[in-house]
């Protein structure tokens, strides 16, 4: 096919991609799943169209339909997909192959599995170039190096010769972006390209995409579940729910006036950086996404909608124009808008901050951790004689205390040691050094060596809803076992207590005889929480309990954790990578970097200047769900150093944007104490940090809490 033919006539150049009335069905044993229904949108050259939705909303199916990569049981039943005036659905296979990868490129979520592990990344990009363009090998190599430079790769020539496993996640994603851009595509589809990455790396990739947009003028279809990312990256967005586009419009307009209850609900249930649980609980979207094989007759969102009227259950609304290029699939968008006007300006009700005074008066610490360290030995010695041995310091001298009924959040990026800390506290991992004291009693290293009473009082909630419950045992079994072990209940008594636990986590007794595979992710997590509360513990260690969940489910779980804590006066050690969640749930925060605490203090203090430079970078990297938020310029350069050879002096000096000079490399920084037990481990005095950080227009208004 000639290059002239696929570069369509100028008349069609207006829209690079036009999707009209697209419906996709998957044939399954339970009948057809209507994954996408009547979705229409168009993307212009140089424009970024964001598609946002929760899992099961059909957003990835749209991308696969455009690429022609639907799985074999998937079929486009209605509608059309036009690329520069050409019908992609009716295009012959050979023509399509010539387009894909060259004119239409895609970047997937998991960079590791998108790259071939046995070929150097440079060769893989060269391969992509040669497949689509007539180039000599030498020219292709040169182009690849240029592309690596364009995606801000440090040392492109060195990266070229590396294998995928030798690159960090962020670098792998850059390689994929370089590959996608290699033929200067007209249409770029990105399916959650930053979802698996740390927040500081995500910020870099988003910066990169923003700068490439200006340079390459491709149309971008950007798919994400993260409203913050969508606000940051797109010009227009579409919100998908149960296979339908429920609202569509320019980003600013949609974020300012959401005219579909689902969009409004999504934004409301997101924990924000400027308020905590003590001031208000998260607004929820009740219920869950409908079964796509048996869709309701009326509006798909009706069963969960707070504003639903009888009409909503009977007829399915169509998209209506609600503003300039802004459409909503709701009958009552006018009422929504009026309601919004009425409440605008009303400040959120501030509940008196009772808990804070309570924890302040509590004297004895429930948990105290002193100089805790854990090393992992990574040995490839042969017979203990040859080869090398590396000691990885996962935790290195961590100290903190926790009062009863208090929540200590431990935050940090992957590899900072936060999970090791959680596992040391509950006794899954034996510390190499240090002391853990629980209610004035020193704890043995492993749970099995600890007393029964300690085990009853110290429980854990796990991260992964799919493995937290034994797939072969019923929910009832999972709950009855701790009841029997620690409360001596059996038979009807255990059943009764198990039902009470289920009710406490908002599930009913029908769940007792179900297997985990019959539950959704959020429901499994609720059972995991119920199991932890079964022993009426005093302390629960929560290891990223909401990170695998959709935002609306996450909100419900966070509220539940707050409620149960108030009821049982439990203390939490809450491990998380998500600063917004931490802001919402925590009383005190410890920020971990390379196995050491670099900042700790009450949550209001940690989220206000002065910050440790690392905390500052973490906060500024968070994509805020507000398109008008100023983009913060603080970015961390370079990868996280290996915990096997942590940098000398301050471990953060290699990436620190506020590095003073050689002193940071030579000397371990002092602990600088602020008010209310706030402490920052840094060479820069607190006053200087505060001055530098409040001057910088660094922090977007939305993230800056009122300084107490």
């Amino acid at each position, binding site marked *: 096919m000639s290059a002239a033919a696929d570069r369509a006539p100028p008349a069609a150049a207006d829209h690079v991609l036009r999707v009209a009335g697209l419906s996709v069905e998957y044939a399954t044993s339970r009948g057809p799943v209507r994954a996408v229904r009547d979705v229409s949108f168009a993307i212009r050259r140089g424009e970024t169209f964001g598609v946002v939705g929760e899992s099961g909303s059909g957003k990835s199916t749209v991308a696969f339909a455009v690429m022609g990569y639907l799985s074999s049981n998937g079929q486009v039943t209605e509608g059309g997909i036009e690329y520069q005036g050409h019908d992609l659905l009716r295009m012959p296979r050979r023509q399509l192959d010539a387009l894909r990868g060259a004119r239409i490129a895609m970047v997937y979520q998991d960079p590791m599995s998108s790259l071939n592990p046995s070929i150097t990344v440079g060769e893989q990009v060269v391969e992509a170039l040669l497949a689509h363009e007539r180039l000599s090998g030498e020219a292709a190599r040169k182009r690849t190096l240029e592309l690596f430079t364009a995606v801000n790769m440090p040392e492109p020539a060195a990266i070229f010769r590396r294998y995928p496993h030798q690159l960090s996640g962020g670098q792998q994603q850059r390689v994929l972006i370089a590959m996608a851009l290699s033929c200067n595509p007209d249409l770029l589809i990105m399916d959650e390209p930053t979802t698996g990455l740390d927040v500081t790396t995500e910020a870099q990739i988003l910066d990169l995409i923003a700068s490439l947009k200006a340079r390459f003028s491709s149309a971008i279809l950007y798919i994400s579940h993260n409203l913050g990312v969508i606000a940051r990256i797109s010009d227009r967005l579409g919100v998908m729910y149960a296979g339908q586009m429920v609202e569509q419009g320019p980003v600013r307009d949609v974020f300012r006036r959401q005219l579909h209850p689902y969009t409004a609900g999504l934004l409301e249930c997101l924990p924000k950086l400027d308020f905590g649980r003590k001031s208000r609980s998260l607004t929820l979207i009740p219920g869950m996404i409908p079964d796509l094989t048996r869709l309701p007759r009326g509006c798909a969102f009706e069963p969960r909608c707070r504003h639903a009227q009888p009409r909503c259950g009977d007829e399915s609304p169509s998209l209506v124009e609600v503003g300039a290029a802004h459409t909503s699939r709701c009958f009552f968008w006018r009422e929504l808008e009026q309601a919004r006007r009425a409440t605008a300006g009303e400040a959120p009700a501030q509940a008196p901050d009772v808990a804070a005074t309570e924890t302040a008066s509590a004297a004895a610490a429930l948990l105290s951790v002193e100089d805790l360290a854990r090393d992992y030995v990574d040995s490839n010695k042969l017979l203990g004689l040859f080869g090398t041995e590396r000691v990885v310091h996962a935790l290195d001298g961590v100290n903190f205390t926790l009062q009863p009924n208090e929540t200590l959040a431990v935050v940090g990026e992957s590899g900072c040691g936060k999970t090791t800390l959680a596992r040391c506290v*509950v*006794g*899954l991992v034996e510390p190499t050094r240090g002391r853990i004291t629980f209610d004035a009693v020193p704890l043995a290293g492993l*749970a*099995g060596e*600890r007393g*029964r009473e300690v*085990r009853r009082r*110290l*429980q*854990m909630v*796990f*991260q*992964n809803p799919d*493995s*937290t*419950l*034994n*797939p*072969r*045992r019923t929910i009832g079994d*999972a709950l009855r*076992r*701790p009841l029997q*072990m*620690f409360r001596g209940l059996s038979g009807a008594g255990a059943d009764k207590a198990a039902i009470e636990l289920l009710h406490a986590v908002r599930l009913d007794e029908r769940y007792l005889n179900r297997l985990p595979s019959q539950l959704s992710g959020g429901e499994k997590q609720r059972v*995991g929480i119920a*199991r932890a509360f079964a022993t009426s513990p005093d302390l629960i260690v929560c290891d990223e309990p909401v990170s695998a969940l959709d935002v609306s489910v996450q909100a419900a779980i966070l509220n539940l954790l707050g409620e149960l804590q108030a009821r049982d006066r439990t203390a939490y050690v809450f491990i998380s990578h998500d600063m917004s969640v931490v802001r919402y749930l925590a009383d005190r925060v410890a920020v971990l970097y390379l196995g050491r605490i670099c900042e700790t203090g009450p949550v209001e203090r940690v989220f206000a200047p002065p910050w440790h430079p690392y905390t500052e970078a973490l906060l500024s990297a968070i994509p805020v769900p507000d398109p008008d938020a100023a983009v913060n310029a603080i970015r961390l350069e370079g990868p996280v150093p290996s915990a096997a050879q942590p940098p000398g002096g301050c471990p953060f000096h290699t990436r620190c944007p506020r590095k003073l000079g050689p002193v940071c490399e030579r000397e371990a920084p002092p602990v600088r104490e602020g008010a209310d037990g706030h402490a920052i481990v840094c060479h820069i005095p607190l006053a200087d940090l505060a001055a530098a950080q409040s001057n910088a227009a660094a922090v977007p208004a939305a993230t800056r809490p009122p300084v107490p």
Partner: protein
Amino acid sequence: MVIGGLLLLLHTVLVLVGPYITPYPYTEFHMADALKAPSWQYWFGTDQFGRDVFSRVVYGARGTLLLAASATALGVGLGVAIGMTVGYRGGKLDEIVMRIMDGLLSFPSLLLAMLIVSSLGPSSINVVIAIMIVFVPRSTRVLRSVALGLKSLEFVEAAKVRGESAFYVITRELLPNAAGPIVVELAIRLSFAILLSTSLGFIGIGVQPPAPDWGLMVSEGRKYLQTAPWLMLFPALAISSVVIGTNLFGDWLGTRLAVRGGRSDL
């Protein structure tokens, strides 16, 4: 699957009702009819003593299959117990036990079985013991890897945080999740056990005459291969049909339970 299932069903029926459907007792001599070709009277012909080959093959199913099944159950059972335990406990115990298993694995199966039977003396019980010993290291390896995969999952960690004993964790948390691999292991081992026991019989150090062991019958029929091929043909057919049957069935189970593909090691 259908073929495998049918073959397996046929043999199971023979094991259950064999003695009631055979036309003659398997030891009954009909000297006048020695070495007769298959006919309506003797369906599979007769051997050198005039014994009915059909009756012997049908009776043989009992001996051969029960022996193989009990050896498989014992070997895999022991392998499950050892593999799960060392996989879950890890450390020094794992290291020591697995090196012993590696030692056992370094002998070819038949050679090891022959060694054991010839040192214990030929008898059905000793054949069972020999096959069991051959199977233990193989099943141990498989179940150890299953336990390794399961033990880092969060529901196992939840049990550890509760302070459950290793016995509880292995039997109540790990074992139910290993059901798939165990069933596949049983099905595949069974066919190897049949081959091994009949091989021992063929060599003459397994089950002793006059028991109607298939391997033994093939071995005895060898002398008459040119004059009375049915002596060898029918027991051999019995062996191959049951082995093919269990293999096909095992493969089907394996894909059905989506555990792992076929295995080629013996």
